[in-house]
């Protein structure tokens, strides 16, 4: 008879939003895993009904303080698809630049303040900074440069005010953007240092046969557009999303769980993008990845921190390229003519695929809204990671195992506010 043990952590820390986790097992047999998300629902889909498409980017930003640009971009793509709006290539480039700022900020935040302490044996980044002050300061500097870019283009980094359907309220001059060149060159160096730093971490041995899902673009490392593809052969246009993915309400959570119709859970985010779009990364980033021993076959979620760092390197390089090639568009935004239609938009939030769908009337008023954030898509897969992790590492003493479970959740950089939700860890052995 295996010993019955209970591990309980009431509030999972170092995640965005709060929640709880419950695992019950006996020996290496896991009988139950529940990721509880009792964080208050904020009901955005209901709030959005009756609102105008013009207000939409401002309202959806408030779903999440960490990734407001991701929500703005998915929403804007959806409305532009509905109304048949085509934007100038310079607007498209500015949106990509804006979004890269959010990737840099969000990835640096997660790597340094939320995730690195797990690998180095510190309770938090405050204690980490006592022993590695220069390293944490470099991480904060990197984060700040991402924020500064967002503020330059959007007025402020949290809930920026510049993006609208058709373009931007105001666009920068080429000289405005060139001011960011110096800081971004510094950010690129900091990001490369970061990648080398995290690649030296001790990584638990744990691999999973994920089905990876991400956007894929013809030529670019996809951020703002592309087709939805998977490592098991899915290849669909964004407007076929709901034909292939289903959401289900589960009793223990205020987040809905997603799965691929007929198959089950899937993985979005850095690992998925790296796997599916490795060939779209510039030679420099692929070279660095090779040097650090990272290949697109990676299916160890504990290596996500290294991929986040590589994506940060990519984002910095991409910003520099976009700034060098920038020519202001003829107008900050094109004219928009509302019509009764349905539109869908998918973009790559820092945490993965973010889907928005709107049904609009002839005046541009939203009739129905549907939002499927990456963290909601990952919840089922997070529970499965815990199931296999606890099964594999059941011999570990309780405190270590609990820590591994928390770290495994942080691998996902869960944005619980996005998924509307609360996290708390309980591991029970029977």
């Amino acid at each position, binding site marked *: 008879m295996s010993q019955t043990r209970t591990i309980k952590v009431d509030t999972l820390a170092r995640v965005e939003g709060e929640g709880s986790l419950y695992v019950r097992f006996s020996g290496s047999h896991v009988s139950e895993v529940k990721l509880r998300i009792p964080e*208050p629902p904020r*009901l955005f889909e209901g*709030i959005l009904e009756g609102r105008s498409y013009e207000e939409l980017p401002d309202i959806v930003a408030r779903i999440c303080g960490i990734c407001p640009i991701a929500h703005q971009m998915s929403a804007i793509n959806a409305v532009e698809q509905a109304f048949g709006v085509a934007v100038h290539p310079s607007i498209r480039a500015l949106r990509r630049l804006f979004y890269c700022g959010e990737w840099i900020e969000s990835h640096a935040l997660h790597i340094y303040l939320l995730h690195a302490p797990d690998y180095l044996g510190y309770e938090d980044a405050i204690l980490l900074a006592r022993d590695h002050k220069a390293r944490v300061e470099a991480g904060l500097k990197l984060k*700040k440069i991402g924020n500064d870019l967002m503020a330059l283009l959007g007025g402020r980094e949290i809930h920026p005010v510049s993006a609208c359907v058709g373009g931007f*309220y105001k666009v920068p001059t080429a000289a405005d953007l060139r001011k960011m060149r110096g800081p971004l060159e510094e950010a690129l160096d900091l990001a490369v240092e970061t990648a080398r730093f995290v690649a030296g971490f001790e990584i638990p041995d744990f691999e999973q046969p994920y089905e990876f899902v991400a956007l894929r673009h013809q030529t670019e490392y996809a951020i703002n557009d592309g087709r939805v593809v998977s490592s098991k052969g899915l290849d669909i246009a964004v407007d076929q999303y709901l034909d292939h993915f289903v959401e289900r309400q589960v009793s223990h959570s*205020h987040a809905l769980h997603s799965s691929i119709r007929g198959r089950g859970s899937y993985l979005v985010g850095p690992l998925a993008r790296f796997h599916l779009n490795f060939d779209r990364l510039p030679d420099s980033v692929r070279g660095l990845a090779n040097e650090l021993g990272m290949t697109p076959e990676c299916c160890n979620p504990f290596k996500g921190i290294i991929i986040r760092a590589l994506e940060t390197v990519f984002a910095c390089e991409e910003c520099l390229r976009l700034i060098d090639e920038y020519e202001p568009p003829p107008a*900050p935004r094109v004219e928009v003519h509302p019509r009764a239609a349905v539109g869908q938009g998918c973009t790559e939030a820092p945490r993965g695929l973010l889907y928005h769908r709107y049904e609009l009337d002839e005046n541009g008023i939203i009739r129905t809204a549907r939002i499927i954030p990456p963290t909601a898509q990952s919840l089922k897969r997070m529970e499965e990671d815990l199931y296999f992790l606890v099964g594999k590492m059941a011999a570990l003493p309780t405190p270590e195992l609990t820590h591994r479970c928390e770290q495994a959740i942080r691998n996902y950089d869960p944005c619980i506010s996005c998924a509307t939700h609360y996290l708390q860890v309980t591991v029970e052995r029977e």
Partner: protein
Amino acid sequence: MKSENGHGPSNHKPKIAIFKLASCDGCQLTLLDAEEALLDVLGAVEIAWFPEATPRVLKPPYDLGLVEGSITTHHDAEYIHQVRKQCRVLIALGACATAGGIQALRNFKDLGATLRKVYTTPGSISALKMSTPIADHVPVDFELRGCPISKAQLLEVLGAFLAGRKPNIPTGAVCTDCKRRGNTCVLVAQGTPCIGPVTQAGCGAICPAWGRGCYGCFGPMESANTASLRDRLVELGQSEADIARTFRRFNAWTWPFREISEKAERGAGETRS
């Protein structure tokens, strides 16, 4: 925020707790976004409860509690009383905590219908009919406005707390910031609807600087003349429905904004009938 808080002479580092209720995380992120000051701030205080940054938990009482988010569940309506008892000084951070936030739009709708739109079996969802600010439930020592709050104002409030003085947070209109910034008035010069004249300053007048009207992130200023602004918006061609939407955003449940949006909604109803 009184001077007799006793931090000055002693070596005792004030214990700070940061709580999150229904919100987007953006206001506590504002603290983490104060990158250059962050390690200094964290060094000057003892973090007693801040799950987003650390699993460390120190026992109450706390010298200062910062609350992000509004009250939307039975659990949080009870929990906030416990938080109040634990914190000598309690500060509400941001539009959710000071005004109910964007989720207070449910206060104008049938909650059941809203829940059914998001969840197939809404019975298992614990939600109150209304989203309400912290001060509706417990006494609050200071309310810092904004959606999101301003980083500079947050550092000012924390600095004031540490020094035992009153925070210096201006309560005038966005128009003041707009003039200081040298913006052209979008309302007068371009005829763009803007609620800056009735909205509290603090954001730095970024929307007018981007050529668009203020949409009220910092909530109503003191003695806001909403009636006069309303007349101006009507002259600019805004319908009653437009006006209702304009004031129903992130601070919709605060009285001056609520009053004008409810009046506009009644007006829109009469126009239709």
